């Protein structure tokens, strides 16, 4: 009977231990949530592009504190009947690695929103683009990546 209890406890321990393990490792460190938006036709409107950096990671902001770091940057393709202005990036937050607190970086963590002012003619529109970013965790950095982005909106 004691062996039975020990076995049950062991199985439980193994199962609980498994709960702590991540179900899957991320394939992308930044997620893009495309939400269809509605703007006023013929008037300057601001579209919002919502991104989320996977927990435990950070990416350089659009203005990292070193020219050698790769900034988060979005490149958009021209779309018919849409006049797009320059993209507006949010400010980053200060970050430093624990082994060198003096070296300050400027990063995005968690959710961040990029704004895109547009003037569009009436109708449904799609703007394709790519978000280029470079992610790190608390001790290591991953090669730069490109995330395809599609901005879907209707001008009424």
């Amino acid at each position, binding site marked *: *009977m004691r062996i*039975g*209890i020990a076995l*049950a*406890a062991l*199985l*439980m321990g193994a*199962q*609980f231990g*498994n*709960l702590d393990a991540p*179900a*899957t*490792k*991320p*394939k*992308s*460190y930044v*997620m*893009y*949530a*495309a939400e269809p938006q509605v703007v006023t036709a013929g008037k300057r409107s601001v579209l919002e592009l919502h991104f989320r950096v996977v927990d435990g990671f950070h990416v350089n902001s659009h203005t990292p504190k*070193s020219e*050698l*770091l*790769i900034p988060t940057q979005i490149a958009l393709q021209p779309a018919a009947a849409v006049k797009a202005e320059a993209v507006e990036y949010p400010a980053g937050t200060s970050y430093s*690695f624990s*082994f*060198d607190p003096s*070296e300050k*970086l400027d990063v995005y963590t968690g959710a961040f929103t990029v704004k895109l002012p547009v003037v569009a003619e009436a109708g449904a529109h799609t703007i*394709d683009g*790519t978000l280029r970013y*470079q992610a*790190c*965790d608390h*001790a*290591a*950095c*991953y*090669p*730069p*990546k*490109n*995330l*395809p*982005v*599609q901005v879907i909106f209707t001008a009424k």
Partner: protein
Amino acid sequence: MKRNGLVLGVMVVGIALLLWSGWHNLRERRKAMQEAQASHVVLTPAKPGDTAGSAVSDDVETPHMLGKMAPGFTLATLDGKNVSLSDYKGRPVLVNFWATWCAPCKIEMPWFEEFRKQYAAQGFEILGMTDDVDAGKDAIAKVVKKTGVTYPILLTDGKVQKSFGGLDYLPVSFYIDRNGVVVEETAGLGSKDEIEAHIKKIVASGAGGQ
């Protein structure tokens, strides 16, 4: 009888917890899958050559070179010379992979330089392996200048990374003893003390082997 009842009760509770944890785990996995699927809906298909969505971190484990002979290589340095690992036969060598975009790499590089001077008398050498050669020599030279390193900076060829087990992230370092064996390998930024301990280990290897 009373004791048996107690034992039975404990087992019932244990099994119930086991079932609950299994259910909880399944639920978390389903939630993660749903989130992944949700993100897929909003992404456009990747174009050929586009690395978006690729499994960069699918296998982000430390390369497994420990206890193996370090693979040989010959690469050009930033100043145009050819350097081979075999040039350092019998000497303790730290092979450090880094990139211009890697902030933690640039934190440890000045530490390496400091240790290189400290253990130079014991034959210790460092080879800085630039992973992002496509950044260009100017960008690489800027980092070298900023970090103040004077050890050889080698331009990788894509093959050397594979020969060291494939590198999915940086920094990654291999500590090679006087016999040419990888006795320590580290991935990510460690502490200065840890780095020195690894260097001491390879410096002490094969006493009198220099």
